């Protein structure tokens, strides 16, 4: 890969993708939990999730638990593939530097 995926190649979005990839396939994570992992503000996290959603990398579900609104985010199959490719790209760079 010549260039890193520009959608994932951003620190907050990279952390979001890594956090989602750690979950079993098909599992979603609540927005508040994701916020704690990523360490971003609500608005910032929301904006980055929208970017990832537009790229087809994550799916967002909104529902209610009792009267409380809940937002959950899950990684799509397309997102998993893109993340794997991105991580392989990083490892390739490190590998090339090590062997040089």
């Amino acid at each position, binding site marked *: 890969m010549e260039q890193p995926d520009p959608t994932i190649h951003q620190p907050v979005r990279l952390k979001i993708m890594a956090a989602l990839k750690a979950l079993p396939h*098909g599992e979603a994570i609540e927005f508040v939990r994701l916020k704690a992992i990523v360490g971003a503000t609500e608005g910032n996290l929301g904006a980055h999730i929208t970017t990832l959603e537009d790229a087809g990398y994550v799916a967002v579900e909104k529902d209610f638990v009792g009267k409380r609104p809940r937002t959950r985010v899950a990684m799509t199959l397309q997102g998993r593939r893109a993340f794997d490719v991105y991580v392989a790209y990083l490892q390739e760079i490190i590998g090339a530097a090590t062997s040089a």
Partner: protein
Amino acid sequence: MSLSSQEAQASLSQVEEATRRSSQLYFYHRSSPHLIMWGIIWIIGYGGTGLFPQYSNPLWAVLVLIGCAGGVILGRCSKPDGVKSGPYAWRFAALWAVILFFVFATYAILQPQHGRQFAAYPALITGSVYMAVGLWSGLRYVISGMVVVALTLIGFFYIEPIFFWFAAVGGGAMILTGLWFRTV
């Protein structure tokens, strides 16, 4: 746009840290309902044993069966439709099976003579297992295990009546731990 190896290494470190944290919180979240359920079982079991000691064996037999069945139901209910059981689902069931087997096998070999020993031993083992699990799964488990073990030893050596102590602090500690695990 190309990355240096230092930048790539820094990005990979971020990935590893986010992955570790996400797995840890997921484990806490999934184990929370199980801990609350077992806390309630402990309260009923130890409280019932204190009130009606003659019925303690059938009471605990029924409660353990309820706990095992409840664990399976909770595991199935907490996963979304179409998602296969995660690696933690069967490990929880297996973990409780190992604890119960170890406790009853030790009773058979060592044959404790006093009610206090019967009461304290499972709590001591449970607390120790929490601490061991926490070495891999997160600090909250280690802290919870230490609290359970400390309360167990205090109860064993200094508290009377011991069954109500275990009902209150053992069961209570498990429920509080479960609630703690739900926070973020």
